[in-house]
Protein backbone atom coordinates (compact mmCIF):
# COMPACT_ATOMS: atom_id res chain seq x y z
CA UNK A 1 0.00 0.00 0.00
CA UNK A 2 1.19 3.49 -0.90
CA UNK A 3 0.43 6.78 0.85
CA UNK A 4 0.02 10.10 -0.92
CA UNK A 5 -0.57 13.36 0.87
CA UNK A 6 -2.69 15.25 -1.62
CA UNK A 7 -2.04 18.98 -1.86
CA UNK A 8 -5.01 20.28 -3.82
CA UNK A 9 -8.15 19.20 -5.65
CA UNK A 10 -6.45 19.10 -9.04
CA UNK A 11 -4.00 16.52 -7.73
CA UNK A 12 -6.86 14.60 -6.13
CA UNK A 13 -8.84 14.43 -9.38
CA UNK A 14 -5.81 13.15 -11.28
CA UNK A 15 -4.90 10.62 -8.60
CA UNK A 16 -8.46 9.30 -8.49
CA UNK A 17 -8.22 8.17 -12.11
CA UNK A 18 -6.39 5.17 -10.64
CA UNK A 19 -9.18 2.71 -9.76
CA UNK A 20 -7.01 1.14 -7.03
CA UNK A 21 -6.72 4.44 -5.16
CA UNK A 22 -8.96 5.26 -2.20
CA UNK A 23 -9.63 8.53 -0.43
CA UNK A 24 -8.37 8.60 3.15
CA UNK A 25 -10.18 11.27 5.13
CA UNK A 26 -10.47 10.77 8.91
CA UNK A 27 -9.65 7.09 8.54
CA UNK A 28 -12.01 6.00 11.32
CA UNK A 29 -13.82 3.62 8.95
CA UNK A 30 -11.33 2.99 6.16
CA UNK A 31 -8.38 2.02 8.38
CA UNK A 32 -10.59 -0.48 10.24
CA UNK A 33 -11.71 -1.96 6.92
CA UNK A 34 -8.15 -2.24 5.61
CA UNK A 35 -6.93 -4.00 8.75
CA UNK A 36 -9.96 -6.27 8.64
CA UNK A 37 -9.20 -7.18 5.03
CA UNK A 38 -12.51 -5.73 3.81
CA UNK A 39 -10.81 -3.00 1.77
CA UNK A 40 -7.47 -3.28 0.00
CA UNK A 41 -6.61 -0.06 -1.81
CA UNK A 42 -3.18 0.16 -3.41
CA UNK A 43 -2.91 3.89 -2.79
CA UNK A 44 -4.29 5.98 0.03
CA UNK A 45 -5.03 9.55 -0.97
CA UNK A 46 -4.93 11.61 2.22
CA UNK A 47 -7.22 14.62 1.68
CA UNK A 48 -6.77 15.97 5.21
CA UNK A 49 -4.57 18.86 4.10
CA UNK A 50 -6.54 20.12 1.12
CA UNK A 51 -7.67 23.56 2.31
CA UNK A 52 -10.65 23.83 -0.06
CA UNK A 53 -12.20 20.61 1.30
CA UNK A 54 -12.32 21.76 4.89
CA UNK A 55 -14.28 24.38 6.78
CA UNK A 56 -17.78 25.74 7.26
CA UNK A 57 -19.22 28.86 5.69
CA UNK A 58 -22.53 30.55 5.02
CA UNK A 59 -23.25 31.39 1.41
CA UNK A 60 -26.46 32.33 -0.41
CA UNK A 61 -28.75 31.12 2.35
CA UNK A 62 -26.94 27.82 2.75
CA UNK A 63 -24.40 26.34 5.10
CA UNK A 64 -21.53 24.85 3.12
CA UNK A 65 -19.45 22.23 4.87
CA UNK A 66 -16.27 20.96 3.25
CA UNK A 67 -16.30 17.17 2.91
CA UNK A 68 -13.14 16.75 5.00
CA UNK A 69 -14.41 18.89 7.90
CA UNK A 70 -14.28 16.90 11.13
CA UNK A 71 -17.36 16.17 13.17
CA UNK A 72 -15.76 18.04 16.10
CA UNK A 73 -15.32 21.17 13.96
CA UNK A 74 -18.98 21.03 12.92
CA UNK A 75 -20.11 20.57 16.53
CA UNK A 76 -18.13 23.67 17.51
CA UNK A 77 -19.74 25.83 14.81
CA UNK A 78 -22.21 28.35 16.23
CA UNK A 79 -23.90 28.90 12.86
CA UNK A 80 -24.57 25.15 12.64
CA UNK A 81 -25.83 25.04 16.21
CA UNK A 82 -28.21 27.92 15.49
CA UNK A 83 -29.52 26.94 12.08
CA UNK A 84 -29.18 23.13 11.92
CA UNK A 85 -29.81 21.94 15.48
CA UNK A 86 -30.61 18.35 14.46
CA UNK A 87 -27.17 18.07 12.85
CA UNK A 88 -25.50 19.18 16.08
CA UNK A 89 -27.56 16.74 18.15
CA UNK A 90 -26.89 13.81 15.84
CA UNK A 91 -23.15 14.47 15.56
CA UNK A 92 -22.83 14.78 19.35
CA UNK A 93 -23.89 11.13 19.54
CA UNK A 94 -21.65 9.89 16.74
CA UNK A 95 -18.88 7.51 17.84
CA UNK A 96 -16.84 9.04 20.64
CA UNK A 97 -14.78 12.17 21.16
CA UNK A 98 -11.76 10.36 19.75
CA UNK A 99 -13.72 9.33 16.65
CA UNK A 100 -15.29 12.77 16.12
CA UNK A 101 -11.89 14.45 16.33
CA UNK A 102 -10.83 12.49 13.24
CA UNK A 103 -14.02 11.46 11.44
CA UNK A 104 -15.34 13.75 8.71
CA UNK A 105 -18.78 14.56 7.36
CA UNK A 106 -17.91 13.54 3.81
CA UNK A 107 -16.46 10.29 5.12
CA UNK A 108 -19.57 9.43 7.10
CA UNK A 109 -21.70 9.95 3.97
CA UNK A 110 -19.37 8.23 1.48
CA UNK A 111 -19.17 5.23 3.81
CA UNK A 112 -22.94 4.89 3.25
CA UNK A 113 -23.81 2.90 6.34
CA UNK A 114 -27.58 2.39 6.77
CA UNK A 115 -26.88 3.69 10.30
CA UNK A 116 -24.84 6.78 9.31
CA UNK A 117 -25.72 9.25 12.08
CA UNK A 118 -25.04 12.39 10.04
CA UNK A 119 -27.35 11.27 7.23
CA UNK A 120 -30.53 11.65 9.30
CA UNK A 121 -30.27 15.42 9.89
CA UNK A 122 -28.85 16.06 6.43
CA UNK A 123 -31.79 14.24 4.81
CA UNK A 124 -34.18 16.32 6.94
CA UNK A 125 -32.53 19.57 5.91
CA UNK A 126 -32.64 18.64 2.19
CA UNK A 127 -28.86 18.72 1.90
CA UNK A 128 -27.17 18.56 -1.48
CA UNK A 129 -23.72 17.27 -2.31
CA UNK A 130 -21.35 19.02 -4.66
CA UNK A 131 -19.45 16.20 -6.35
CA UNK A 132 -16.46 16.52 -8.62
CA UNK A 133 -15.47 13.88 -11.14
CA UNK A 134 -13.72 13.27 -14.45
CA UNK A 135 -16.67 14.84 -16.30
CA UNK A 136 -16.72 17.97 -14.17
CA UNK A 137 -18.67 19.06 -11.13
CA UNK A 138 -22.30 18.16 -10.44
CA UNK A 139 -24.75 18.55 -7.59
CA UNK A 140 -26.93 15.74 -6.30
CA UNK A 141 -29.55 15.74 -3.55
CA UNK A 142 -28.57 13.60 -0.56
CA UNK A 143 -32.01 11.97 -0.88
CA UNK A 144 -31.04 9.63 -3.70
CA UNK A 145 -27.28 9.61 -3.05
CA UNK A 146 -27.41 6.39 -1.03
CA UNK A 147 -28.03 3.34 -3.21
CA UNK A 148 -27.53 0.55 -0.66
CA UNK A 149 -25.27 -0.48 2.20
CA UNK A 150 -21.84 0.95 1.27
CA UNK A 151 -23.15 2.03 -2.15
CA UNK A 152 -23.58 5.60 -3.32
CA UNK A 153 -24.08 7.66 -6.46
CA UNK A 154 -20.32 8.36 -6.50
CA UNK A 155 -18.92 7.18 -9.85
CA UNK A 156 -15.33 5.99 -10.28
CA UNK A 157 -13.03 9.02 -10.00
CA UNK A 158 -15.58 11.13 -8.11
CA UNK A 159 -15.13 12.83 -4.79
CA UNK A 160 -17.43 14.84 -2.51
CA UNK A 161 -16.40 18.47 -2.39
CA UNK A 162 -19.05 20.18 -0.27
CA UNK A 163 -22.15 19.30 1.68
CA UNK A 164 -24.58 22.17 1.08
CA UNK A 165 -27.50 22.63 3.46
CA UNK A 166 -30.16 25.28 2.84
CA UNK A 167 -30.79 27.21 6.05
CA UNK A 168 -34.39 26.46 7.02
CA UNK A 169 -36.71 29.33 7.83
CA UNK A 170 -37.32 29.67 11.58
CA UNK A 171 -40.23 27.87 13.21
CA UNK A 172 -39.35 24.23 12.65
CA UNK A 173 -39.50 22.10 15.74
CA UNK A 174 -36.44 19.82 15.76
CA UNK A 175 -36.44 16.20 16.95
CA UNK A 176 -33.76 13.53 16.98
CA UNK A 177 -33.53 10.29 18.86
CA UNK A 178 -31.10 7.42 18.44
CA UNK A 179 -31.81 4.11 20.11
CA UNK A 180 -28.77 1.98 20.93
CA UNK A 181 -27.35 -0.21 23.67
CA UNK A 182 -25.40 2.72 25.11
CA UNK A 183 -24.96 6.39 24.38
CA UNK A 184 -21.40 6.43 23.02
CA UNK A 185 -19.71 4.26 20.41
CA UNK A 186 -22.91 2.60 19.43
CA UNK A 187 -24.30 1.81 16.02
CA UNK A 188 -27.95 2.78 16.06
CA UNK A 189 -30.56 0.05 16.44
CA UNK A 190 -32.85 2.65 14.95
CA UNK A 191 -32.87 6.43 14.80
CA UNK A 192 -35.44 9.01 13.79
CA UNK A 193 -35.13 12.70 13.10
CA UNK A 194 -37.95 15.11 12.42
CA UNK A 195 -38.68 18.72 11.56
CA UNK A 196 -42.25 19.74 12.28
CA UNK A 197 -44.07 23.07 11.87
CA UNK A 198 -47.35 23.57 13.58
CA UNK A 199 -49.59 26.60 13.02
CA UNK A 200 -52.65 26.72 15.23
CA UNK A 201 -53.49 23.03 15.48
CA UNK A 202 -52.41 22.27 11.91
CA UNK A 203 -49.28 20.49 10.70
CA UNK A 204 -48.08 22.92 8.03
CA UNK A 205 -44.70 21.30 7.51
CA UNK A 206 -43.34 17.88 8.36
CA UNK A 207 -40.22 15.91 7.50
CA UNK A 208 -39.10 12.57 8.89
CA UNK A 209 -35.89 10.61 8.34
CA UNK A 210 -34.85 7.27 9.80
CA UNK A 211 -31.67 5.24 10.10
CA UNK A 212 -30.88 1.53 10.52
CA UNK A 213 -34.32 0.50 9.28
CA UNK A 214 -33.68 0.14 5.54
CA UNK A 215 -30.71 -0.56 3.25
CA UNK A 216 -29.92 3.17 3.42
CA UNK A 217 -30.86 6.09 5.67
CA UNK A 218 -34.24 7.23 4.35
CA UNK A 219 -36.79 10.03 4.35
CA UNK A 220 -40.28 8.84 5.29
CA UNK A 221 -42.03 10.64 2.43
CA UNK A 222 -45.21 8.57 2.63
CA UNK A 223 -45.76 9.58 6.25
CA UNK A 224 -45.02 13.22 5.49
CA UNK A 225 -47.44 13.41 2.56
CA UNK A 226 -50.22 11.65 4.45
CA UNK A 227 -50.23 13.95 7.48
CA UNK A 228 -49.16 17.32 6.03
CA UNK A 229 -51.96 19.92 6.31
CA UNK A 230 -53.86 17.77 8.79
CA UNK A 231 -54.82 18.86 12.27
CA UNK A 232 -52.50 17.34 14.86
CA UNK A 233 -54.88 14.89 16.53
CA UNK A 234 -54.34 11.53 18.23
CA UNK A 235 -55.80 9.86 15.12
CA UNK A 236 -53.20 11.54 12.93
CA UNK A 237 -50.40 10.55 15.31
CA UNK A 238 -51.61 6.92 15.17
CA UNK A 239 -51.84 7.04 11.40
CA UNK A 240 -48.28 8.43 11.18
CA UNK A 241 -47.03 5.69 13.47
CA UNK A 242 -48.75 2.98 11.41
CA UNK A 243 -47.48 4.35 8.09
CA UNK A 244 -43.95 4.77 9.44
CA UNK A 245 -43.91 1.12 10.51
CA UNK A 246 -45.14 0.12 7.05
CA UNK A 247 -42.70 2.27 5.11
CA UNK A 248 -39.48 0.88 6.60
CA UNK A 249 -37.81 -2.43 5.74
CA UNK A 250 -35.57 -3.35 8.65
CA UNK A 251 -33.65 -6.58 9.07
CA UNK A 252 -32.87 -8.88 11.99
CA UNK A 253 -29.23 -8.59 12.99
CA UNK A 254 -26.97 -8.80 16.04
CA UNK A 255 -28.24 -5.48 17.36
CA UNK A 256 -32.00 -6.03 17.19
CA UNK A 257 -34.85 -7.75 15.40
CA UNK A 258 -36.71 -6.25 12.49
CA UNK A 259 -39.94 -6.24 14.52
CA UNK A 260 -38.33 -4.28 17.33
CA UNK A 261 -36.89 -1.74 14.89
CA UNK A 262 -40.31 -1.28 13.29
CA UNK A 263 -41.86 -0.58 16.69
CA UNK A 264 -39.08 1.87 17.61
CA UNK A 265 -39.58 3.86 14.40
CA UNK A 266 -43.33 4.01 14.92
CA UNK A 267 -42.93 5.14 18.51
CA UNK A 268 -40.34 7.79 17.67
CA UNK A 269 -42.46 9.24 14.88
CA UNK A 270 -45.39 9.46 17.30
CA UNK A 271 -43.16 10.99 19.96
CA UNK A 272 -41.83 13.63 17.56
CA UNK A 273 -45.38 14.70 16.72
CA UNK A 274 -46.49 14.81 20.36
CA UNK A 275 -43.48 16.94 21.33
CA UNK A 276 -43.92 19.33 18.42
CA UNK A 277 -46.55 21.85 19.55
Amino acid sequence: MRYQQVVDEAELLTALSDPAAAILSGGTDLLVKIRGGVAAPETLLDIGRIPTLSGIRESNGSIEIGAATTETEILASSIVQETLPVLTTALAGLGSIQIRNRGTLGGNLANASPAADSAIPLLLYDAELDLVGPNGPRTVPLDGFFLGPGKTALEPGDYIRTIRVPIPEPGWCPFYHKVGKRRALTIAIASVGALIRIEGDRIVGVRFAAGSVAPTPIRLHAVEERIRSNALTEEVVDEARRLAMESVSPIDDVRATADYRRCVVGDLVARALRLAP
Partner: protein
Amino acid sequence: MKVRLTVNGRPLEGEADAETRLLDFLREDLQLTGTKEGCGEGECGACTVLIDGQPVNSCLVLALQADGSDVLTIEGIADGDTLHPIQQAFVETGGVQCGFCTPGFIMAAYALLKATPNPTDEEIRSALEGNLCRCTGYERIVDAIRLAAGRMQGDA
Protein backbone atom coordinates in the same frame (compact mmCIF):
# COMPACT_ATOMS: atom_id res chain seq x y z
CA MET B 1 8.54 7.88 3.85
CA LYS B 2 9.78 10.51 6.25
CA VAL B 3 7.63 11.61 9.16
CA ARG B 4 8.36 14.60 11.37
CA LEU B 5 6.57 14.94 14.67
CA THR B 6 6.88 16.71 17.95
CA VAL B 7 6.36 14.05 20.61
CA ASN B 8 6.07 15.10 24.24
CA GLY B 9 7.72 18.40 23.36
CA ARG B 10 10.66 16.89 21.45
CA PRO B 11 10.86 17.36 17.69
CA LEU B 12 11.92 14.17 15.95
CA GLU B 13 12.07 12.51 12.58
CA GLY B 14 11.48 8.90 11.58
CA GLU B 15 10.50 6.59 8.78
CA ALA B 16 7.02 5.20 8.30
CA ASP B 17 5.19 3.39 5.53
CA ALA B 18 1.52 3.50 4.62
CA GLU B 19 0.73 0.64 7.01
CA THR B 20 2.39 2.22 10.07
CA ARG B 21 -0.16 3.50 12.52
CA LEU B 22 0.74 6.31 14.88
CA LEU B 23 0.32 3.68 17.62
CA ASP B 24 2.97 1.44 16.01
CA PHE B 25 5.30 4.36 15.46
CA LEU B 26 5.07 5.43 19.11
CA ARG B 27 5.44 1.91 20.53
CA GLU B 28 7.89 0.28 18.10
CA ASP B 29 9.99 3.13 16.74
CA LEU B 30 10.03 5.45 19.74
CA GLN B 31 9.69 2.71 22.39
CA LEU B 32 6.95 4.75 24.05
CA THR B 33 5.03 1.69 25.19
CA GLY B 34 2.83 3.53 27.68
CA THR B 35 0.24 3.88 24.91
CA LYS B 36 -1.59 0.54 24.71
CA GLU B 37 -3.33 -1.30 21.91
CA GLY B 38 -6.67 -2.71 23.02
CA CYS B 39 -9.18 -3.40 20.27
CA GLY B 40 -7.27 -1.84 17.37
CA GLU B 41 -10.48 -0.49 15.85
CA GLY B 42 -11.39 2.63 17.76
CA GLU B 43 -13.84 1.12 20.25
CA CYS B 44 -11.85 0.99 23.48
CA GLY B 45 -9.69 4.12 23.70
CA ALA B 46 -6.68 2.36 25.28
CA CYS B 47 -4.46 3.90 22.59
CA THR B 48 -5.68 7.47 23.17
CA VAL B 49 -3.05 10.17 22.65
CA LEU B 50 -3.46 13.87 21.96
CA ILE B 51 -2.76 15.26 18.51
CA ASP B 52 -2.54 19.05 18.64
CA GLY B 53 -4.35 18.88 21.96
CA GLN B 54 -7.22 16.68 20.79
CA PRO B 55 -7.71 13.10 22.00
CA VAL B 56 -7.63 10.56 19.16
CA ASN B 57 -7.34 6.80 18.84
CA SER B 58 -3.73 6.32 17.72
CA CYS B 59 -4.76 2.97 16.19
CA LEU B 60 -6.89 4.87 13.66
CA VAL B 61 -4.31 7.43 12.58
CA LEU B 62 -1.45 6.65 10.23
CA ALA B 63 1.91 7.97 11.36
CA LEU B 64 2.13 9.74 8.00
CA GLN B 65 -1.23 11.44 8.57
CA ALA B 66 0.16 12.89 11.79
CA ASP B 67 3.19 14.36 10.00
CA GLY B 68 3.92 17.84 11.29
CA SER B 69 1.71 17.60 14.34
CA ASP B 70 2.26 17.81 18.04
CA VAL B 71 1.69 14.50 19.84
CA LEU B 72 1.33 14.09 23.58
CA THR B 73 1.44 10.62 25.16
CA ILE B 74 1.17 9.36 28.71
CA GLU B 75 4.98 9.58 28.97
CA GLY B 76 4.82 13.32 28.40
CA ILE B 77 2.65 14.56 31.24
CA ALA B 78 4.63 13.87 34.43
CA ASP B 79 7.13 16.44 35.68
CA GLY B 80 10.26 14.32 36.04
CA ASP B 81 9.57 11.89 38.88
CA THR B 82 6.56 13.84 40.06
CA LEU B 83 3.36 12.38 38.70
CA HIS B 84 0.88 14.64 36.97
CA PRO B 85 -2.02 15.46 39.33
CA ILE B 86 -4.33 13.26 37.24
CA GLN B 87 -1.92 10.31 37.53
CA GLN B 88 -1.52 10.90 41.27
CA ALA B 89 -5.30 11.01 41.73
CA PHE B 90 -5.74 7.70 39.85
CA VAL B 91 -3.23 6.12 42.26
CA GLU B 92 -4.98 7.49 45.32
CA THR B 93 -8.59 6.71 44.41
CA GLY B 94 -7.94 3.23 43.06
CA GLY B 95 -8.78 4.30 39.54
CA VAL B 96 -6.22 1.77 38.34
CA GLN B 97 -6.70 -1.97 38.59
CA CYS B 98 -5.14 -3.98 35.77
CA GLY B 99 -3.91 -0.69 34.35
CA PHE B 100 -4.20 -1.46 30.67
CA CYS B 101 -6.84 1.19 29.96
CA THR B 102 -5.29 3.76 32.31
CA PRO B 103 -3.03 5.69 29.91
CA GLY B 104 -5.99 6.20 27.56
CA PHE B 105 -8.27 7.37 30.36
CA ILE B 106 -5.63 9.75 31.67
CA MET B 107 -5.06 11.29 28.25
CA ALA B 108 -8.82 11.72 27.74
CA ALA B 109 -9.05 13.32 31.20
CA TYR B 110 -6.04 15.52 30.43
CA ALA B 111 -7.80 16.93 27.35
CA LEU B 112 -11.00 17.45 29.35
CA LEU B 113 -9.32 19.39 32.16
CA LYS B 114 -7.43 21.60 29.72
CA ALA B 115 -10.72 22.67 28.13
CA THR B 116 -12.94 22.42 31.20
CA PRO B 117 -10.94 22.88 34.42
CA ASN B 118 -13.97 22.46 36.69
CA PRO B 119 -16.14 19.79 35.04
CA THR B 120 -19.43 18.42 36.34
CA ASP B 121 -19.69 14.65 36.85
CA GLU B 122 -21.77 14.52 33.67
CA GLU B 123 -19.01 16.31 31.76
CA ILE B 124 -16.43 13.90 33.17
CA ARG B 125 -18.49 10.90 32.07
CA SER B 126 -19.04 12.38 28.61
CA ALA B 127 -15.33 13.02 28.20
CA LEU B 128 -14.67 9.35 28.95
CA GLU B 129 -17.26 8.04 26.47
CA GLY B 130 -14.55 6.73 24.15
CA ASN B 131 -12.69 4.75 26.81
CA LEU B 132 -13.53 1.30 28.14
CA CYS B 133 -12.46 -0.15 31.50
CA ARG B 134 -13.31 -3.74 32.41
CA CYS B 135 -12.04 -3.60 36.02
CA THR B 136 -13.00 -0.53 37.98
CA GLY B 137 -16.66 -0.01 37.18
CA TYR B 138 -15.66 3.58 36.32
CA GLU B 139 -16.68 5.13 39.66
CA ARG B 140 -13.12 5.44 40.92
CA ILE B 141 -11.96 6.82 37.60
CA VAL B 142 -14.57 9.56 37.85
CA ASP B 143 -13.51 10.10 41.49
CA ALA B 144 -9.89 10.47 40.37
CA ILE B 145 -10.69 13.09 37.77
CA ARG B 146 -12.86 15.04 40.17
CA LEU B 147 -10.02 14.97 42.73
CA ALA B 148 -7.43 16.00 40.14
CA ALA B 149 -9.62 18.84 38.90
CA GLY B 150 -9.91 20.21 42.44
CA ARG B 151 -6.17 20.04 43.01
CA MET B 152 -5.26 21.54 39.63
CA GLN B 153 -7.63 24.45 40.30
CA GLY B 154 -5.97 24.92 43.67
CA ASP B 155 -2.63 25.21 41.90
CA ALA B 156 -3.86 27.81 39.47
